[in-house]
């Protein structure tokens, strides 16, 4: 990788101030999205601001109606502590591999908005809220496209609040080599209705309204048996054509409903 200036921030305010001074800075938490990109020399930030040790960003808090995960909380910690939402715990255990889960963080993952990442499905599937140093952003508004989010320059994810669902599950069909999601579907039933969020299949996480409506009427796998997403616009690569991904969305959604029900 190219060389850069390294700063370790002690607090959110310090991190934001350091970022403001950097000409092309990036926040570094676990580094498991950023460092691989930098190693390939595909990114050349001037400054890395290490937020990994800011206590306020670390940890899983269980509130009466929600689970709040600090931005710099590693996946392994979510897997161990997000007991109030078992589907979220289980999703965290499917990210990367054990070593990656010890370092990779939720904030780093969602700020990167990789189209095949697992967390976006949980955020959108559960209707989570992203808290930044400036504002709160609904998950539905957070993911804007391929590696694109609603975050503005210098804005930092502080935590993610996941409302507790009545029932939820995540089903993932991994891309065999990278183990990212070829297709991952998060299904949640809440008091307000049903949410179905799909990752891996498209340029960014998306919801399947037709499935949500059908599942609201009847929360069974059979209720969505005939509901498919159009292949047009879905990702297509050597690991899966758009047509195959469209098919998998239905299979994974049904399996998620079966697991959640």
């Amino acid at each position, binding site marked *: 990788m190219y060389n850069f200036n390294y700063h370790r921030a002690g607090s959110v305010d310090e991190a934001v101030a350091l970022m403001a001074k950097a000409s092309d800075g990036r926040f570094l938490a676990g580094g*498991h999205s950023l460092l691989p990109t930098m190693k390939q020399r595909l990114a050349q930030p001037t400054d890395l601001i290490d937020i990994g040790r800011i206590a306020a960003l670390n940890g899983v808090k269980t509130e009466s109606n929600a689970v709040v995960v600090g931005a710099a909380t590693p996946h392994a910690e979510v897997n161990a502590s997000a007991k109030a939402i078992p589907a979220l715990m289980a999703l965290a255990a499917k990210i990367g591999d*054990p070593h990656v889960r010890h370092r990779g963080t939720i904030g780093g993952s969602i700020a990167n908005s990789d189209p095949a990442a697992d967390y976006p499905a949980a955020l959108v599937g559960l209707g989570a809220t992203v808290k930044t140093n400036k504002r709160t952003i609904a998950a539905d508004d957070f993911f804007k496209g391929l590696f694109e989010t609603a975050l503005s320059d210098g804005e930092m994810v502080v935590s993610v609040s996941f409302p507790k669902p009545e029932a939820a599950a995540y089903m993932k069909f991994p891309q065999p080599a990278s183990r990212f999601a070829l297709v991952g579907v998060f299904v949640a039933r809440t008091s307000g209705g049903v949410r179905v969020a799909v990752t891996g299949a498209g340029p960014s996480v998306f919801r399947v309204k037709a499935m949500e409506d059908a599942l609201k009427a009847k929360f069974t796998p059979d209720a969505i048996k005939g509901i498919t997403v159009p292949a047009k616009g879905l990702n297509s690569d050597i690991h899966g054509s758009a047509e195959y991904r469209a098919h998998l969305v239905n299979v994974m959604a049904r399996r998620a409903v079966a697991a959640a029900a």
Partner: protein
Amino acid sequence: MTIAVAMKVNGKAVSGQVEARTLLVQFLRENLRLTGTHVGCDTSQCGACVVHINGKAVKSCTTLAAQADGTEVTTIEGLARDGKLHPMQEAFREHHALQCGFCTPGMVMSAIDMLRRIPRPDEATIRHELEGNICRCTGYHNIVKAIQAAAKVMGG
């Protein structure tokens, strides 16, 4: 820029002045000459570089030396005590869980971390937990056997 890093590696205090871009694995191999930790890929997948930071397995190829500053790092060189192999190393030897030896340090470090988290894993769990380590020689068969045997010895 260069930065100063200091950490405990295998129980010994070490320090150095390194480029900010220095990865932990480079610091271990090049500055400390602890060449037991290997690099087998550049996309954070093969696991040959796995070490423990504060007792947890991490990929030292995807961790800056700066991020390990102030931590306790254990590498493959830090496992055997007074010439006596760690039970996991012993199990790998007993069950022929290594051939060329290149992935072995990462495998052993990962396996120890696995048993820390899951003391008595079944075969399917072991295979799943090895998702972050690639071995091209053994076909994994004997690695799985070695980890099962070590779990018994290590009293899980």
